[in-house]
Structure formats: structure tokens, C-alpha cells
């Protein structure tokens, strides 16, 4: 335990150094923070404007859809805060800078997350969480102790799910340096998919993304659990509670990809 605490403290220091480094370019950082505040504000406004006009989607009313959108947003933005920059792994692999992470007595993965940390993502995560709290308040939720706990856990498991996706996608760089934007189809595409009830989509596409790739467990199923509604697609309620489990599985898969990837790392010239 003390060991974990000490390690966390070390990462904390490296993270603060990273923020301090960014703060060296003061104007750039201020503009970035200002810009992201404006964008985040507009994002929230868009959601409310959208829901004030129509709202009902795929058999759910406005506040219900908002809850799912907010769950997706909270999961994605927090996951993005932690691992959203991992696609920069490509630069590190291509330039061979990844070497310098491997010669330190720290996890290369956590180091990567820390040194690519971008302050502007804090704003986005805050936005996602605010939206989630608002959605919880306006939605018609039959609160129980179980649901309260679930409401706390679900954005975390959503964040773990998206973080795993970011990391898993980034590891492609170990095999194909010119991996391009393939991974983004799943991360950003996944966010867009999860923002709406799965019932909106049709056929094999829905089944593949909702169940096969697990995106339904970020917002759709947890939304049903919180609202106390049965799944219109007919899956048993127990499945809907499985979001944390799915997140753990995703994290394990990403970890395996990472481990194998690091062993494939080829470095570059001298």
C-alpha cells in the first residue's frame, strides 16, 4: 500500500512538472484554456438546444436520452483526460523517443499518459461531469441505494472503457508506424454511437457495436438500469448491470495489447 502511494506521488510530481512545462508558454496555455472553455460551453449549450427542440429518440423521451448522452459524455471525457493523448505514442515510436520512457523505473504506459497530459482536457472532463449531474437531476430515476452506487460507478467504468480503447488503438503504432487514424474510428466513432440509445440503430450494426464491441455498456444499458426500464431489445436486466465487468475486460485486453506491443517496439537508428 505504501508502495502504491509512493509510486502515485512520483507520477504526481512528473505530472506537475509536465503542467509546469506547458505553463512556460503562458500565452499559448491561456489561449488554449480560454478556447476550450468557449468550446465546452458551446457544446453544453448545443446539447440543451437540441433536447429542447425534439428530445425523444428511439423510444425514449428527452430526459432519458439526455441521461444516455450525458453518460457517454462523462465516460468519454474522463477517459480522454486520462488516455486521450495516447495516440501520440505514434510520434514517440516513430522518433525513437519511446526509448527514454523505457529506461526509467516507471511504467511506460503511465509515463506516456503523464507526459502527453493536456490541461485543456480537464475542462472537457468537467463539462462531461456537469452534464451528467444535470441529467441525473432532470431524469425520472427511481432512486435506490443500488442505483446511487451504480450512478457513481458507471461514469468511471465508461472512462475505463474509453481509456482502454484509446490505449488499445494507440498500440497499433507498435506494428504499423503509419497507423493513421484507424483507431479514431473506434474512439470518436464509439463516443458518437454511445451518445444515442442503441434502439436508434438497426440490424447487425447495432448488435456489433452494442454487444460485440461493448459500446452499449457505456451509456445505453447503464441508462436503462438507472431509469429502471427493461431493454426494448429484449436482453435480461442482469446483463445491463454488467458495465463495470465489461470495462474490466476492456482494460485487460488493452493491457495485453500494450504488453505485446512494447515487445514489438523496434526503436530507431542510434
Amino acid at each position, binding site marked *: 500500500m505504501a508502495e502504491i502511494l*509512493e509510486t502515485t*506521488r*512520483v507520477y504526481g*510530481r*512528473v505530472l506537475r*512538472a509536465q503542467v*509546469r*512545462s*506547458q505553463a*512556460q*508558454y503562458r500565452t499559448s496555455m491561456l489561449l488554449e484554456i480560454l478556447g476550450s472553455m468557449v468550446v465546452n460551453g458551446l457544446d453544453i449549450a448545443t446539447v440543451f438546444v437540441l433536447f429542447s427542440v425534439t428530445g425523444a429518440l428511439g423510444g425514449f423521451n428527452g430526459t432519458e436520452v439526455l441521461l444516455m448522452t450525458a453518460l457517454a459524455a462523462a465516460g468519454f471525457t474522463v477517459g480522454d483526460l486520462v488516455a486521450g493523448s495516447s495516440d501520440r505514442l505514434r510520434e514517440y515510436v516513430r522518433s*525513437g*523517443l519511446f*526509448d*527514454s520512457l*523505457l*529506461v*526509467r*523505473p*516507471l*511504467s511506460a504506459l503511465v509515463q506516456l499518459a503523464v507526459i502527453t497530459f493536456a490541461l485543456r482536457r480537464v475542462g472537457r472532463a468537467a463539462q462531461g461531469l456537469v452534464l451528467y449531474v444535470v441529467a441525473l437531476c432532470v431524469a425520472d430515476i427511481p432512486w435506490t441505494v443500488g442505483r446511487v452506487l451504480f450512478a457513481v460507478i458507471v461514469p468511471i467504468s465508461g472512462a475505463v472503457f474509453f481509456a482502454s480503447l484509446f490505449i488499445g488503438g494507440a498500440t497499433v503504432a507498435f506494428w504499423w508506424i503509419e497507423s493513421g487514424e484507424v483507431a479514431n474510428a473506434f474512439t470518436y466513432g464509439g463516443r458518437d454511437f454511445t451518445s444515442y440509445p442503441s434502439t436508434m440503430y438497426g440490424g447487425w450494426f447495432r448488435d456489433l457495436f452494442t454487444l460485440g464491441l461493448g459500446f452499449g455498456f457505456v451509456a445505453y444499458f447503464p441508462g436503462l438500469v438507472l431509469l429502471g426500464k427493461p431493454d426494448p431489445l429484449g436482453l435480461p436486466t442482469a446483463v445491463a448491470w454488467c458495465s463495470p465487468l465489461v470495462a474490466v475486460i476492456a482494460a485487460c485486453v488493452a493491457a495485453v495489447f500494450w504488453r505485446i506491443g512494447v*515487445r*514489438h*517496439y*523496434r*526503436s530507431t*537508428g*542510434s
Partner: protein
Amino acid sequence: MIISARGLRKDFTVTRKVGRLRRERHVVSAVDGVDLTVERGELLGYIGPNGAGKSTTLKMLTGVLTPSGGEVRVCGLEPVAKRTTLARRIGVVFGQRSQLWWDLPLEDSFSLLRHIYRVPEGDHAARLKQCSDLLGLDEFRHTPVRQLSLGQRMRGELTAALLHGPEVLFLDEPTIGLDVLSKQAVRSFLTDLDRRGDTTVVLTTHDLADIEKLCRRLVVIDHGHVVHDGTLDELHARYRSRRIIVADLDTPWPEGLTLPGAVVTSVEADARRVTLTLDGAAAGEVVAALAQAVSLRDLSVQEPNIEDVVSRLYRDES
């Protein structure tokens, strides 16, 4: 034995386009069966032409690259499997990959590294002072790393690699691109480190002065193979490099004159300058014989040139 490698190999798969869609895969062995043992406290020069496999070997020893075959142990550990444990016991300076925080003052990097390696405050201060005195860090320790000259940065890198008191220090071309003064500073620092004897140093370099001044033992690698492992003298002996005597004379060199233990290689400047290559005899004997035979105006003895030896070595194997 602090480093041991047996049959160490690293293969890279290279794909090459043939035709519109087809690609051919080739396996290239960057390191092809390297055997190496290094004892504690040695300073080893690992040299070879570009692309010989020097850096690849170093990266396998430090746990950065996973070997394709063979066995390797550093500090008794398997580098890749025990990467983070090993990282605490080795120091690394890869010339082109900085360990320092680019935008922060140099001293910030040092204090971050103290926490990363969990070095007790007292040890850290003592080691920092020692490095600082030897490398003259004081004048630029408050400067952000990005504003340092290459020479200053390299001194910073060396310090950063040594603050946790590593058992082995790996240096990949530490003097590349440095000015004369910085090179000297780095060399004398390494000489000092070597003299103290508690740090094993493995150094790759193209700089022949580094080799002559620092490395008692040389391992020469080419095309992934070790082609020489021994002292500089042994390298000279093996490639029959000899000392040369150049003599300026008052009177022309008498044609047909021979001296025991030396071969006349050239007679120039109206036969008033003669070049002799030593062949077995000591320089003193030849000089004495020379002084008796002719009237000497000036004389110089030239050491065998490592440059020649190494370039011959590189050519030989390629």
C-alpha cells in the same frame, strides 16, 4: 561479471515494395550472435561503423529492445523482463534522446529524477555536488534545458544518469557533436569515474580520441558480429600497426643503408628526410643506430594511428 550476453541476436523484418501491391519481407539481423562479458568496474569501448549493431546491442542490454535470440543478463537480471528493477541499477545516456525536461530548469530535472529513482536526499546531494564540481554545472543549473548548448546539455545528461548511483553506465556516443572543450570535460569526467572503479561503463563512440584516451578494452562490432575483443595494443598488434620514425638529415641518406629492426619506407626531400617503420626493435635502439650512421638534424617518433587501424578494420570486414 556484471554484463553477460551469449549468442545475442536481434532480427528486424523489413518489408520492401515489389510491384504495385506485393511486398517482400526480409529478415535483417542487426545483431547476429554477440558474445560479451563485462566485469564490474571495467570501462569498455563498443565501436564499429554505422549500422554495425552498436546501438541495438545497447538497447537490448538496457531492456529497451527485446532480443530475438540468445541470452543476456545485466546485474544478474534479464533486461526486458525486469526492466523497471534494472532501470534503478543502470544509467543511460543515449545522445539523441534526452532524459531531461526540455522546458524546465536543469536542476528541476535533477530533483524529479531524485524522486523517480527514490534516492535519499543526502546521497542525491553528495552525488550532485560531485558531478557539479567535475562538470561545472553551477553556471547553468537554473537555465531551462532547451536553452542549453549541446555541451552543457550533455553534462546535464551525464549527471542525470549518475544521480541514482548506477552500477552500470551505458553511453551511446556521448561526445558526438560536442566542441573540443566539452569533449575534454566529458572525457576527463569519465576517466575520473573509471578511476573510482565502482561504476562499470559501456560506451559506444566514433570518436577515436575517446577510444585512445578512455578505453582499456575495445569490442569492435561489424555487421552484427564481434570482430575484435581486447586492448587497443592488441588491436594494433593484430593489424600490425607500427610506430614510425621520421628523421631529417644534414647529409643525404646513403643509398642501400639498412638498420636492424626497422624498414625504410620512404626517402624524400633530396634524400634528406627518411621515414622508417619499426619492425620489432625498440625505438631507442633504432634511433641510436641511426645517429651513428648519419648526421641527424631533427627526429620524431609517431605512434601508430588508431584511425588507420579502425578504418582498416571496418574495410576488412565489409
